């Protein structure tokens, strides 16, 4: 166990790049009363991947799959940042020094500070580095 409680299941959804697709995904989540905590869209030529942290990933996965979407779970980690100048630097420095490569990241700034969501090449090493560097990781129990 140990590090596993920091591994968060992000849902990733394949979407064509055309009007109404995001609305279709968002509406499905609304229908299931699923709350989106953070999300981003990665765009490529003609298609995109919608990535989201939601409060019940399993339910979201089932609903979207049933609707015919291509859905996958991706392991990410979420690190708390100080919501002030230098907050991102502090976290990025820890990861850089730990030799952790960031594949992609997105962030949100909520009531209790800012959170950086990271997809990294080595999740376990990243968790160890972040903890060693003294930063705080969000637990996956927030997203079930």
């Amino acid at each position, binding site marked *: 166990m140990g590090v596993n409680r920091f591994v968060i299941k992000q849902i*990733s959804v*394949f979407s*064509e790049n055309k009007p109404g697709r995001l609305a279709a995904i968002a509406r499905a989540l609304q229908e299931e009363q699923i709350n989106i905590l953070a999300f981003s869209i990665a765009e490529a030529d*003609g*298609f995109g*991947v919608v990535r989201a942290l939601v409060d019940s990933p399993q339910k979201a996965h089932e609903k979207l*799959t049933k609707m*015919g*979407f291509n859905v996958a779970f991706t392991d990410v980690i979420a690190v708390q940042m100080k919501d002030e100048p230098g907050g991102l630097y502090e976290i990025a420095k820890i990861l850089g020094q730990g030799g952790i490569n960031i594949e992609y990241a997105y962030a949100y700034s909520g009531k209790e500070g800012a959170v950086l969501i990271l997809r990294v090449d080595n999740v376990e090493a990243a968790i160890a580095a972040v903890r060693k560097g003294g930063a705080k990781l969000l637990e996956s129990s927030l997203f079930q």
Partner: protein
Amino acid sequence: MTRAWDPRIEEMPLENLKKLQYTLLKTLVYRLYSFSAFYHRRMEEAKVHPDDIRTLEDIQKLPFMYKRDLRDNYPDKLFIASQEDLVRYHVSSGTTGKPTVVGYTERDLENWTVSLARALVSCGLGRGDVIQVSYGYGLFTGGLGLHYGAERIGATVLPTSVGNTERQIELMQDLGATAIACTPSYLLHIGEVAEKMGISIRKDTKLKTGILGAEPWSENMRQRIQDWLGIKAYDIYGTSELSGPMFCECTEQRGFHVWGDLAYVEILDTQTQEPLPPGERGEMVITMLQKEAMPLIRYRIGDISSIEEDVCPCGRTHPRVQRITGRVDDMLIIRGINVFPSQIEYALMTIPEVGQHFQIIVDRKGALDDMLVQVEVAQEAFSDKITDLMGIRKKVEHKLRNILNVGVNVELVEPGSLPRFEGKAKRVIDRRKI
């Protein structure tokens, strides 16, 4: 299992078969010269008389008939039987233009039914089988043709026709269908719908045979259907002009046997119209040797294939035509290069990351033709990483470029978003304005 429906004909030595074909051709030419104003005129224009036909090979002296001849003579001006002698009409779907009308005498229907009886027995069906006919019933020849052929061999027919796929699957299960006759794309659709209903065709039904045709499909698609659904898939061939579906593969799956007493097939070079040797791909030209109401001589059916004349391991001597690999008129010309949708299907079947459905959109950007192929990303292949998805697209583009010799753009679309077809698949949208 019955060896053959009519072994005397089906296993006739090739030499005797050719003699029979010559006799039938000679009779046919005299009959048309005497009774068809249309063909009489065409023979005079070509300066050929029935007396000039002295060997089977002399068929090459005879003028061709074209699809447009059928349209120009709409509805029945090519018939040489009077209406009182007709027992049925069928009207073609008109996917390549105006509809064409085909009339049948009693004997025409009998020959059609016998042709299918031989075909169905050759792929292992017979008494005790339940054959679900999921071709359209009505003006289209598929439904009624297979229906009477299946009844003739003593099988039980389940005449579901097309549409209402969920009900088709329920009936398939409840009545224990052992075979289905439909288009290959519709069978794929049935497989997908069944899975959504929580039914495995392989495990939860008795289906073991698919009689698939009415649209071109590839050997890879056959493998995919067989592996996925756990059935044997056989290619059946025919068009309404010939009567309807007529010829089917035997259990050897080495191309469909063309019954030589009913039809004579030539494979010609698409440029020179010279006959090609067995094994070489060219334009298929068909002569229907026994049709009464609407005979066809050297009919340019528009399909591209090759022929094999060696005796089949199943014991049948009648030549085998390989699966249709393209159509003369489906052929797209992209920047001067001939492209057949079947080539694209073939290429996609070798890439498991994309589904079996596709759509081709042709447009003109400036002076250049632009071909876009849309494919669905398979659920198992979906990755959160954009680079992986771009990789799939690159792979498909690369494969298509290699097979087609022309660059194409590929677009990844959501699963289930491309149109499914219950009849003939229309996979090409040509937006070029020329």
